[in-house]
């Protein structure tokens, strides 16, 4: 480890970095669109002169001209290694005379990572790793990761730096004017992620001038105890006569940077538009000792790519438990089949119901858990901004999922067994995260609170050896059924309170285990949840769709001054009435109260035709309650109503949005009726149809529309999502014995991947038909790429499938 640089980062003096490279090279003739790093080979003297000017101005370190020199931008260019090595060497030459340091400058790849883009996390990691290996070998003193706009890419860069060099890491992000990264993360999110990954200094660069940076530097100082770096632009870019210019002069710049130092920054320099004069103006600052910082209080924060959630000491949050296949047949089937859409619906519905963190467990016997957990975590992250609790007992699965997780995760779990401690704690230390500490060990679960506390203490003490603090642990004192042990609840409540007060740890608990083996479980669960909350439970692992649990949660917060002016309670229950027919708390579910629709007749068929989802569900429910036979309801009302709308669409009287809304309303009614049907009848569905948006294509709206309609016409659909490789389509169709595969592609550039998929399906599965659709396709085109059918719209696909499956 290069301790020299580390010491300088926290030497007690302000550390001076250089100013801009790009705009300096433009002044020397670099053209728009020209690659600045190539000047390391063709115009080395110019590059060196810029470095020398910064050292002469007083900089303690300069960034080598390697910002964009990564394989993702250079596309396998053989020159790349030379470009990076030359960049570091030129900076070293300039540093020699001045006695300064050289940073390997690592900028973004210029590619957007999944899920918004198509670039894989591992590909980004590989690009950074290649750059860092060359830069470190060429003699850089530290790695400066900068201008990052996406936490996910930032994480790839930091991991690459840590795993491919021994150098200290300074990581800075580019904020937008709203104080967020391009992908939506705020300062707290970035700080939690980078502290977890244990970089050596963190901060901001680019974006805007030092004046606007001030408020965010204050946020950062409140969120981290690491040294803070700022490298702002010379103001906001302005366009004058078609050129981008920066207008803040050296003196004004220095005055504003001084305020940043007062706010806690101890490493300062400049980005776009700054010059050696700007850095020279900071010279006075470099003599200063920055004011002492008050380290922020220890908090337990986990993050996603765009949201930080605190597991609070003085309040309570909800961890949604539903993505866990234990005892859930449908979820188990969905995970085995690779039906992503089902899992995603579970994620979104829990988020909508008010969960703050989602548990993700994919432990199904016979499945490749490391692969399934990894892909499920990534898929769930694509549809929710809630942080996840990665729930597995397999360290391999944990590491792979943690590595690919966007943010700082909650790990579930470590326990007091040696095997668990030595496998899990190093992973938490490496990737960052908070970790659930289960109070069990080799001898099982101690019967007393004393015993459980002792294990929790041991886990926390072992954590300290890895640099983990008590606030990194969320203690789970384990919920055992009161039917098996009458004293179970009392023990749990005592242990909860003591974990909070004696250990200073946050707590979590899988509440509903308490009622195992007893009738009316929801009632007991809610009562026990309230008791646990009043004994300091920080995070209940509960079903957020269970109305009784949410009522207990909201009531507790309203009654203990945690719900400001009872605002959440009032918003949730204003329309509550004791006569409400369902047990879903204050929701308005009856057709009468939702009567804002355009129709005067209020029948199930009409609700479906008008696309009124909640009305359709409510009417199906009341029809069943009124004695109507489930199959009569399906054949007599739901199917004909949907058929009417479908025919309307085909004849041009009904348009796509109305068709979709009708299909969803029919689906909601189906769902109600299905639960009333005997098992074998409920299972009588057609299919399966395997659907995918082809490799390389990330536009999947058309495929989603087709899926929704097929499902509501009674087909079982296995939706593989988007950007799906041909092999995966074939593998799934084979395993599920599918007779129909549906593919979508939006762009002319991805029709090639569609053609390849069609060919592979036909080759491997001669009995399987392939139907295709998408904006650029026509009947002719579809025939040319070998597809069996082309559907111009979703109804067309339904008709084709009906013909095929009879």
């Amino acid at each position, binding site marked *: 480890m290069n301790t020299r640089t580390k010491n300088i980062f926290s030497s007690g003096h302000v550390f001076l970095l250089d100013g801009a490279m790009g705009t300096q090279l433009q002044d020397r003739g670099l053209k*728009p*669109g020209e690659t600045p790093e190539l000047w390391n080979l063709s115009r080395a003297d110019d590059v060196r002169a810029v470095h020398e000017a910064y050292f002469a101005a007083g900089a303690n370190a300069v960034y080598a001209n390697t910002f964009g020199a990564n394989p993702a931008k250079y596309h396998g260019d053989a020159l790349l290694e030379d470009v990076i090595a030359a960049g570091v060497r030129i900076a070293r030459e300039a540093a020699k005379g001045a006695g300064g340091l050289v940073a390997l400058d690592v*900028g973004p790849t*210029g*590619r*957007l990572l999944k*899920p*918004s*883009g*198509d670039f894989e996390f591992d590909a980004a990691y590989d690009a950074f790793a290649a750059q860092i290996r060359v830069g470190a070998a060429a003699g850089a003193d530290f790695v400066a990761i900068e*201008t990052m*706009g996406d936490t996910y890419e930032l994480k790839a860069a930091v991991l690459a730096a840590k795993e491919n060099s021994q150098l200290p890491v300074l990581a800075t992000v580019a904020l*937008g004017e*709203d104080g*967020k990264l*391009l*992908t*939506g993360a705020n300062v707290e999110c970035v700080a939690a992620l980078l502290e977890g990954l244990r970089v050596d200094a963190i901060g901001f660069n680019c974006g805007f001038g030092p004046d606007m940076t001030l408020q965010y530097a204050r946020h950062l100082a409140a969120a981290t105890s690491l040294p803070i770096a700022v490298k702002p632009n010379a103001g906001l870019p302005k*366009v004058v006569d*078609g050129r*981008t210019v920066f207008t803040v002069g050296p003196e004004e710049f220095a005055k504003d940077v001084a305020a940043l130092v007062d706010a806690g920054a101890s490493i300062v320099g400049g980005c776009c538009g700054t010059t050696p004069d700007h850095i020279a103006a900071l010279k006075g600052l470099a003599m200063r000792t920055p004011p002492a910082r008050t380290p922020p209080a220890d908090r337990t924060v986990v993050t996603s790519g*765009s949201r930080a959630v605190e597991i609070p000491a003085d309040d309570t949050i909800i961890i949604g438990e539903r993505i866990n296949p234990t005892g859930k047949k449908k979820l188990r089937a969905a995970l085995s089949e690779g039906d992503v*859409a089902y899992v*995603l*619906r579970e*994620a*979104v*519905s829990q*988020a*909508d119901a008010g969960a703050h963190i989602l548990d993700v467990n994919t432990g199904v016997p016979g499945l490749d858990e490391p692969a399934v957990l990894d892909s499920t975590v990534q898929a769930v992250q*694509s*549809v*929710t*901004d809630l942080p996840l609790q990665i729930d597995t007992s397999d360290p391999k699965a944990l590491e792979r999922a943690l590595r690919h997780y966007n943010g700082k995760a909650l790990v579930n779990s470590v326990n007091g067994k040696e095997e668990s401690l030595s496998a899990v704690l190093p992973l938490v230390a490496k990737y960052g995260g908070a970790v659930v500490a289960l109070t069990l060990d080799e001898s099982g679960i101690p019967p007393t609170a004393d015993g459980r506390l002792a294990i929790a203490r041991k886990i926390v003490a072992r954590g300290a050896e890895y640099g983990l603090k008590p606030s990194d642990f969320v203690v789970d004192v384990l919920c055992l059924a009161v039917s098996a042990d009458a004293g179970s609840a009392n023990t749990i409540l005592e242990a909860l309170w003591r974990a909070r007060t004696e250990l200073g740890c946050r707590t979590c608990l899988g509440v509903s285990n308490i009622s195992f083996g007893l009738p009316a479980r929801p009632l007991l669960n809610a009562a026990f949840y309230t008791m646990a909350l009043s004994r300091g439970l920080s995070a209940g692992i509960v079903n957020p769709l269970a109305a009784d649990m949410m009522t207990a949660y909201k009531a507790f917060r309203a009654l203990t001054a945690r719900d400001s002016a009872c605002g959440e309670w009032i918003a949730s229950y204003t329309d509550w009435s004791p006569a409400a027919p369902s047990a879903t708390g204050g929701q308005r579910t009856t057709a009468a109260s939702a009567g*804002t629709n*355009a129709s005067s007749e209020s029948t199930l068929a009409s609700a479906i035709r008008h*696309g*009124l989802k909640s009305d359709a569900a409510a009417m199906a429910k009341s029809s069943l309650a009124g004695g109507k036979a489930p199959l009569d309801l399906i054949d007599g009302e739901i199917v004909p109503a949907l058929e009417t709308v479908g025919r309307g669409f085909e004849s041009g009287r009904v*348009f*796509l*949005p*109305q068709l*979709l*809304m009708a*299909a*969803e309303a029919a689906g909601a009614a189906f769902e109600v009726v299905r639960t009333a049907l005997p098992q074998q009848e409920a299972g009588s569905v057609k299919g399966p149809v395997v659907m995918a948006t082809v490799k*390389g*294509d*990330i*536009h999947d*709206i058309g495929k*989603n*529309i087709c*899926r*929704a309609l097929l499902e509501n016409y009674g087909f079982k659909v296995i939706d593989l999502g988007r950007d799906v490789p041909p092999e995966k389509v074939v593998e799934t169709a084979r395993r599920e014995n599918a007779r129909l595969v549906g593919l979508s592609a939006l*762009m*002319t*550039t*991805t029709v090639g*991947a569609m053609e390849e998929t069609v060919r592979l399906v036909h080759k491997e599965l001669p009995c399987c038909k392939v139907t295709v659709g998408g904006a650029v396709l026509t009947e002719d085109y579809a025939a040319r790429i070998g597809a069996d059918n082309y559907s111009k719209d979703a109804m067309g696909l339904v008709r084709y499938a009906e013909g095929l499956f009879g």
Partner: protein
Amino acid sequence: MDGFSIDDVQICRYLRLYGRAPGAALEERINAMRKAADAAFRPARTWRRFDDVAVAGGAGSQSLSKHLAGCHAIYLVCATIGAEFDALQRRTAAKSPSDAFVLQAIGAAAIEALMDETELEIRRELADGETLVSRYSPGYGDYPLSEQQRLMALLDAPRRVGVSLTDALVMAPSKSVSAVIGVRAGEST
């Protein structure tokens, strides 16, 4: 940046209503989705003037030359409504394809509105006696999609506005537009 306003008529066009009124139930969904979209928009755009029309490239594109005939300068423009809208789109698609369909229509109308607004600002930069021709993008006519790479590099788009290209030359975030706008002599409108 000034706000940009999205026209209901445009949303209905992208919903393929072919001039028909949406009706009460759909209208309610449109309003709900507009509200959600408003919270997710993070518009960004960048542009650059070049007094050399050849900068637009085109790899011998006839349609581009024809479009820029008589122009003495061009603006290259890139705009996006941001990656958070894509996240909202994915979230919505997981629970309701109909809402997702409405949302993508709003996104399509929004990026067009943002480009219109950007064009107005560019007009203010023009010299007296200059006017703009309509915008033109790679993929139109025989202007190859691969020229996107050139435009993105010239605009430094990944860094300036967070827009990049996928391997298949799809723009990401999904509601993003790049374009060439020619400048010719004439009265500004």
